[in-house]
């Protein structure tokens, strides 16, 4: 199962675009990449979930862990997501109140 993790820089933010399915098998690679970015001093990160086909609670756990790590560095983790099937898991778990979720990367980096 392929998981794409593409990093670009945009207006002072590091954008991590995730593609594919995020579950118990692929989540460790996602977590490691986020930890690497924070270790490199990237403390303002946008995670773009528009290319994600599937995300379960292990993926949510990676994002919660990433947000916690970044906040401990006075940073932030913003999300980009418009897919209802992905947004649904954030809504059910109440995490829409924890994360700032934007429709586009432009909107996120301009916030």
């Amino acid at each position, binding site marked *: *199962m392929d998981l794409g993790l593409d990093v670009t820089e945009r207006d002072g933010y590091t954008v991590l675009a995730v593609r594919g*399915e995020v*579950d*118990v*098998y692929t989540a460790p690679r996602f977590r490691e990449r986020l930890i690497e970015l924070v270790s490199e001093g990237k403390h303002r990160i946008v995670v773009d979930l528009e290319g994600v086909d*599937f995300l*379960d*609670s*292990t993926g*949510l*756990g*990676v994002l*919660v*862990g990433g*947000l*916690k790590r970044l*906040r401990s560095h006075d940073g932030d983790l913003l999300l980009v997501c418009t897919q*209802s*099937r992905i947004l*649904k*898991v954030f809504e*059910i*778990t*109440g*995490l829409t*109140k*924890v994360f700032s979720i934007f429709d586009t990367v432009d909107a996120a980096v301009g916030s």
Partner: protein
Amino acid sequence: MSARAVQLEIPAGAEFVALARLVVSAMASAETQLSDDRVDDLKIAVSEACTNAIEAHDALETDERVLVECRADESLLEVRIEDRGSGFDVSNLPEHPPVTDPERLKFERGLGIPLIRALVDEVEFSSSDEGTAVRIVMRHDDAIDGYSG
């Protein structure tokens, strides 16, 4: 329509959870009138239950396989996921702080069972020190709407 069923035994490895999702969603699409959204909900529930099962086997370092059974009839789709882990008390799961509490970020796990409960029409957990069985039911959309055909 008579009942149709598939049975799958997956090795207790994380890479096989996607296979369980694929088989169950294919069955749901082929044998039921569940909408795409509800098939997506079912995939998440199956993924969560299989993840818990695999982690239970991992904790015991057992090579036993996880059983995934899927059965469809004219009114519902039933999925049963069975493991041989050490079980858990479903009535005594740790509670997360409210999402507005900064302490909430300390909890990266424990969202799977609440997700299952929210996404499916029925779920039952039967757990003992010999393993756990999760029974998930999705009723056909026309059955929920009260449409009798």
